[in-house]
């Protein structure tokens, strides 16, 4: 880890530790440029991952990865009139929402599902005549509302007949599957942060809680539970770092597929094992563990669960046949192209 990333981690850590007032903390994140990191020339993805990971360690309910995505796509597409902190949404595949031309203006149609709640409008990627565009949707009416397992409010948004302001839409200037890949990557980094806190809480609790006259950490069965969490965290840590550095080198589809698949799969194991270590206290809302395990069980399904990403890699591997090993370890541009081709045709409900 380079110094600049360590510094970024330390500064968001300080902000979130200090923050008691939610609005003030949000403003602090904004003025510290935390939503802009994906625009950086170098180490953009590794820095972004570090920030969302640390935020997830604190279980903050301030949105970070969504606004990062919104800033990044709006900037790359050259949109104007987008607020500094906006939400972000993808329409799934096949898309449930799209853009149309009407009387020389662009209007949206269809709907978006599972959009995180936010006050400032939404940057979305919607197709216009089959080509992906970045669109800013300033105001839209929510239809129904649901909560995910982490307690985050989601809405379905009706897009029919919303007129897009001048400068509010432009063709996506990067490969069509990239927004999904990057969103999945940031979600994996969030999962990592929550997992790290589960490890810290579990090992600390095992050292403190006494039964039969000694800390439960002295029981081998409990030690092995702690080891399983540690192995899981280590696996996701390496996978997320690899994905970050591969993205920063201009590749990264394979590495993100691996990171998101492993993070989603391991989320379930770590949640279960951490609860087992904690006994009944961990099952209450008076103890912090549940805040993290509920996030694990919710985030793992965002932007493709483990079955989705395994299917992408498996479909490509069947085509790669005897070349699978070299695709995996050489990770060349051809590898990512093949994965993108599979991704473009894969069904995904957001």
């Amino acid at each position: 880890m380079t110094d600049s990333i360590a510094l970024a981690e330390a500064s968001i850590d300080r902000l979130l530790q200090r923050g008691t007032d939610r609005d003030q903390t949000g403003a602090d994140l904004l003025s510290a440029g935390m939503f802009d990191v994906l625009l950086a020339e170098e180490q953009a993805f590794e820095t972004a991952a570090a920030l969302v990971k640390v935020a997830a360690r604190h279980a903050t309910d301030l949105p970070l990865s969504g606004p990062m995505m919104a800033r990044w796509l709006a900037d790359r597409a050259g949109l104007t009139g987008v607020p500094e902190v906006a939400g972000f949404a993808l329409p799934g595949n096949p898309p449930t929402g799209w853009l149309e031309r009407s009387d020389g203006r662009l209007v949206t149609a269809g709907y978006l599902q599972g959009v995180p709640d936010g006050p400032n409008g939404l940057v979305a990627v919607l197709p216009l005549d089959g080509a992906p565009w970045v669109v800013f949707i300033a105001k839209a009416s929510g239809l129904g509302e649901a909560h995910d397992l982490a307690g985050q409010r989601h809405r379905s948004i009706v897009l029919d007949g919303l007129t897009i302001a001048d400068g509010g839409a432009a063709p996506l200037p990067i490969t069509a599957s990239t927004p999904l890949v990057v969103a999945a990557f940031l979600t994996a980094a969030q999962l990592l942060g929550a997992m790290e806190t589960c490890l810290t809480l579990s090992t600390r609790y095992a050292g403190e809680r006494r039964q039969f006259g000694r800390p439960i950490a002295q029981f081998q069965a409990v030690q092995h539970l702690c080891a399983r969490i540690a192995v899981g965290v280590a696996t996701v840590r390496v996978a997320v770092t690899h994905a970050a550095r591969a993205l920063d080198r201009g590749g990264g589809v394979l590495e993100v597929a691996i990171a998101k698949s492993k993070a989603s799969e391991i989320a379930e194991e770590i949640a279960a094992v951490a609860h087992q270590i904690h006994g009944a206290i961990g099952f209450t809302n008076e103890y912090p563990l549940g805040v993290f395990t509920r996030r694990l069980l919710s985030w793992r399904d965002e932007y493709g669960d483990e079955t989705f990403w395994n299917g992408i890699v498996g479909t490509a591997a069947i085509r790669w046949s005897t070349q699978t090993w070299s695709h995996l370890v050489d990770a060349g541009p051809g590898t990512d192209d093949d994965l993108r081709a599979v991704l473009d045709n894969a069904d995904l409900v957001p």
Partner: protein
Amino acid sequence: MFEHVHTSDPRELRSLRGEIRAFLAEELARGAFKPAPNSWMIHDREFSKRCAAAGFVGMILPTAFGGRGRTIVERHVVFEELLAAGAPVAAHWIADRQSAPQILRHGSEELKQRVLPRIAAGDCTFAIGMSEPDVGSDLASVKTRAEASDGGWRLYGTKLWTSNAQRADYMVALCRTGAPEPNRHSNLTQFLVDLRRPGVSVRPIQNINGDEDFCEVHFDGYHVPDSEVLGKPGDGWALVMRELVAERSGPDRFLSTYPVLARALAGSHPVPLRAAAEIGRLVVNLGALQAMSLSVATAAQSGHSPEIEAIIVKDAGTTFEQELPAVVRKALGIRPGRSTGDDLRDLLGTALLYAPSFSLRGGTREIIRGIIARAVISQ
């Protein structure tokens, strides 16, 4: 524990991978070997010699001893490619992986001159003499003893499960050279044993696959000259711990059954569409482990000693290589067998029968998890 993840840029390793793949393709083309699971237990000295002649053995040994002066990461990449191809590397594997570095660090000058060039030439097989009939996980309780005698030591006792001892030239044996005081790790010593000299006898033992991979080795007063003691007498425990780090994190801890997956993807039995995600999960796990293991090698190359990281790779890696044949069997719906004439069914059969050993050899899963737990709980 992987707080700082070291990564190597795959682009910088491509040309070396190209070289070793070209060597392997040539060997395959002339029928020198058939890809097999667990191939680091398959002994073929002629293959090892050709491998060495091509520059792929003794890579990190100094050139003065016939080595190639390459980096730890370069050697790691070659290990990966050899095992992914299922090549028969047992004749040089143990020597190259752990015995040569051990001799380089702790051997006498005379010993280095005599043995290291032979290892680098792929013409010297080593065996690991740790376990005994009553000594498994509790390695500090070794009972094989060495008694000081005429300019050296005499060994008495029995080593067990010694892989490839019947085909090996040498063994590094851990023996008790004094009372277990002040603690049980005191007074242990590592000795080089020439398995062709008198005073030592070897009996091969058949495993459940019908192969004779490991042996019982009996010492009846075998004489070790002082020049063949490794390190200082009594320091054996520290030496053996260092050796185990090298033994635990390499590609041999996650690639043992990869040739089964390679064969399954080669298309003789079509992968049903519904099984794509199951097969994909294996490929994803392979990628995750390859990254972890390479990260440990990269950290070691930068001068760190990533001991817990190495052990974590062994735990996750052996779980993966164990479940691989089971997943392939279910996903493709095929029946494993032996000499069925169908390559995939035969490879699966061998892999399934070898799988139980992966979480035993090199330290059992229970012991490994205990070490990981102590590291994270005390943090």
